[in-house]
């Protein structure tokens, strides 16, 4: 399980390749399922110019570990990679990467999606959007 918080922009596709290079199960995985969440420049009808992603140092990392463990403990998953941005984020920046490797596709698809859903509901992150004329806290995640 590789869990990582980033204060600077990251390239999810390079992260996946780096993780894969250091894995010792080449030939064993037949399926890789990935989700990347990217900041849009519009939300709820308003133009968003910038976002501040607050987190709870100490708890957020632990909670990500916990939820990845929870999702994958009874599943034939070979490896999980989660990268999440914090701090100032701009439209087009990637916010979250979830990548799951397994022998067959069902476990990879299921776990990748479950991790995203649980992450959205449980991981301690809070988004504050900067609009043209004001700030606002995002109050609720869109449903998945």
């Amino acid at each position, binding site marked *: 399980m590789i869990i990582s918080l980033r204060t600077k922009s990251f390239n999810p596709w390079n992260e996946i390749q780096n993780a894969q290079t250091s894995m010792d199960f080449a030939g064993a995985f037949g399926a890789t399922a990935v989700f990347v*969440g990217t900041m849009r420049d519009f939300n709820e009808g308003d133009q968003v110019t910038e976002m501040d*992603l*607050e*987190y*709870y140092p*100490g*708890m957020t990392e*632990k*909670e990500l570990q916990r939820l990845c463990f929870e999702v994958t403990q009874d599943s034939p998953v070979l490896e999980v990679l989660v990268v*999440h941005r914090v701090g100032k984020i701009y439209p087009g920046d990637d*916010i*979250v990467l979830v990548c799951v490797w397994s022998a067959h596709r069902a476990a990879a698809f299921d776990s990748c999606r479950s991790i*995203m859903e649980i*992450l*959205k*509901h*449980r*991981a*301690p*992150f*809070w*988004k*504050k959007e900067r609009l043209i004329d004001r700030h606002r*806290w*995002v*109050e*609720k*995640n869109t449903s998945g």
Partner: protein
Amino acid sequence: MTVTVKFFASLREQTGCDRVDITIEQSCSVKAIWKMSTSLTLDPHILVAINHAYRDQESDVCDGDEVAFFPPVTGG
């Protein structure tokens, strides 16, 4: 006995406080800790963590605990 209280996101802005250490006489409830830390009302949607793990508003708080209050999460 000392308890560390933290507020995050909109709660941090509303309380005007991100962290406060409070002294309690004996173990008490999360609700009591809230009342000692802020004059705001404890909305039932507010989430609670004790020592970095989710707990509910009915939980007990002990000496040395870190109690965090925050709104529903919006990551991902």
